[in-house]
């Protein structure tokens, strides 16, 4: 099966040249190209991608921020960074941030192919199995207390999911835009699959708490329930401008929790008036900056990060609130910044 390679660069000539070169290479690759980090994020949320190749200097979301985003949200997807402006310091920075390889432009197509082949080879170094039920095989991994990343392809639909094992414990899972237990239930319910095992666990967070047996039982129960009752499907996320769609929980009741965006709007509106700001929205392209600021706060023993204000010397400035997806409020540069920050950082 062809591997999907996503190439991100604002140099359209280079994109076309790399696409032509890789498309024609032994029929191994399916190449997707986009011109900036924001579009790359939209592709990652909606398509299965095996490897990302990204430039560093790009408008809107640069390569470093994209790399941080992928390392956090899609840790199983290797990233090759390419740049014309790098130094040995840059290479050290990107590798520390999780890049699998680093190419200095200009480079020959051969170098990129060699890098891709090395990366893809590592993904199957632990072995490959075909036509197996994942639930049965994964119990072996638990018994053997394996640490690995298992890429699973469902034979009929060719959907691709990933399971992360640490010392035999299933700690995380990913299936397109689903993570944790939700992704695990779906993957564990598949019947005939192909598995590829990489001998390291790429997940950074433990999102799954239950044990494997319990997860398998629950996955089977949900599968049976789905067969007998019709469930509405969650709408697919449409490519947009980087603003994340609100997550719609299937089966949940509306109004169970206060909407974070509405809470922010209610705090900001009395200070700015109804028209003094852009309605709050979620944008995970800020997550990397917020995560790094949080790390700095921990270093300074400052406590939790409550809110941020960013001035980029543009028409609007940005108020940020940390969360699973950063909440953003665009405000005028001359807004009462300190009052807003004080209001937003109240518990």
């Amino acid at each position, binding site marked *: 099966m062809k591997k999907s390679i996503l190439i991100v660069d604002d140099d359209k000539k280079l994109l076309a040249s790399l696409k032509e070169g890789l498309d024609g290479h032994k029929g191994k690759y399916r190449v997707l190209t986009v011109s900036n980090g924001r579009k790359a994020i939209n592709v990652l949320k909606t398509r299965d991608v095996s490897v990302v190749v990204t430039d560093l200097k790009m408008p809107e979301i*640069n390569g*470093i*921020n994209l790399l*941080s985003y992928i390392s956090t949200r899609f840790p199983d997807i290797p990233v090759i960074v390419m740049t014309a402006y790098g130094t040995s*310091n840059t290479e050290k*920075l990107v590798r*520390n*941030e999780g890049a699998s390889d680093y190419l200095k432009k200009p480079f020959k197509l051969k170098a990129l192919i060699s890098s891709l082949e090395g990366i893809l080879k590592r993904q199957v170094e632990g072995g490959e199995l075909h036509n197996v039920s994942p639930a049965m095989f994964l119990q072996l991994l638990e018994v053997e207390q394996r640490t690995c990343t298992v890429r699973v392809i469902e034979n009929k639909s060719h959907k691709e999911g990933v399971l992360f094992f640490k010392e035999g414990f299933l700690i995380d899972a990913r299936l397109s835009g689903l993570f944790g237990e939700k992704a695990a239930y779906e993957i564990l319910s598949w019947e005939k699959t192909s598995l590829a095992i990489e001998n390291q666990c790429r997940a950074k967070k433990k999102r799954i708490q239950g044990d494997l047996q319990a997860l398998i039982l629950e996955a089977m129960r949900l599968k049976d329930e789905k067969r007998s009752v019709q469930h509405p499907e969650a709408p697919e996320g449409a490519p947009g401008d980087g603003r994340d769609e609100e997550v719609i929980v299937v089966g949940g009741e509306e109004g169970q929790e206060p909407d974070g965006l509405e809470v922010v709007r209610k705090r900001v509106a009395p200070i700015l008036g109804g028209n003094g700001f852009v309605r709050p929205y979620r944008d995970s392209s800020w997550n*990397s*900056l917020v995560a*790094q*600021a949080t*790390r*700095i*706060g921990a*270093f*300074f*023993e*400052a*406590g*939790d*990060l*409550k*809110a*941020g*204000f*960013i*001035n*980029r*010397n543009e028409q609007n400035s940005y108020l940020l609130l940390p969360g699973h997806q950063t909440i953003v409020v665009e405000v005028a540069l001359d807004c009462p*910044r*300190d009052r807003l*920050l*004080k209001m*937003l*950082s109240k518990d």
Partner: protein
Amino acid sequence: MKEFFADIMDVEGVEGLILFSRQGEILHKEFRNEESFEPESRDWWGLFIYTLDGIEEADFVFRKKWLYIRKTNNGYLFVLAKRGAPVAMVRLNCDILLPNLQDMEGQKGWGRFFRRNK
């Protein structure tokens, strides 16, 4: 260098400051309690500086402290203060002082930090 930033350090509630180059190297650091923090012990400042690319200034409000970041000719100035410190005074002092920080490239000694008055 201590004298240069004295007005910022004198603002009530300010705990310290760090001046970074564009590459994330620490050019100067000062804390009210000298034993407080050792930023040299961390290697991720450069990554954060890189991520700040294009940002003129930023405020990060934490539960106990406030971090103000301002772009300079040389790189970035980080000012750490207690929550509730008069942050507007810090910004005002930055407005006054930082234009006098000259681009360091190609120069040596303390003189590299100061713009010559013509």
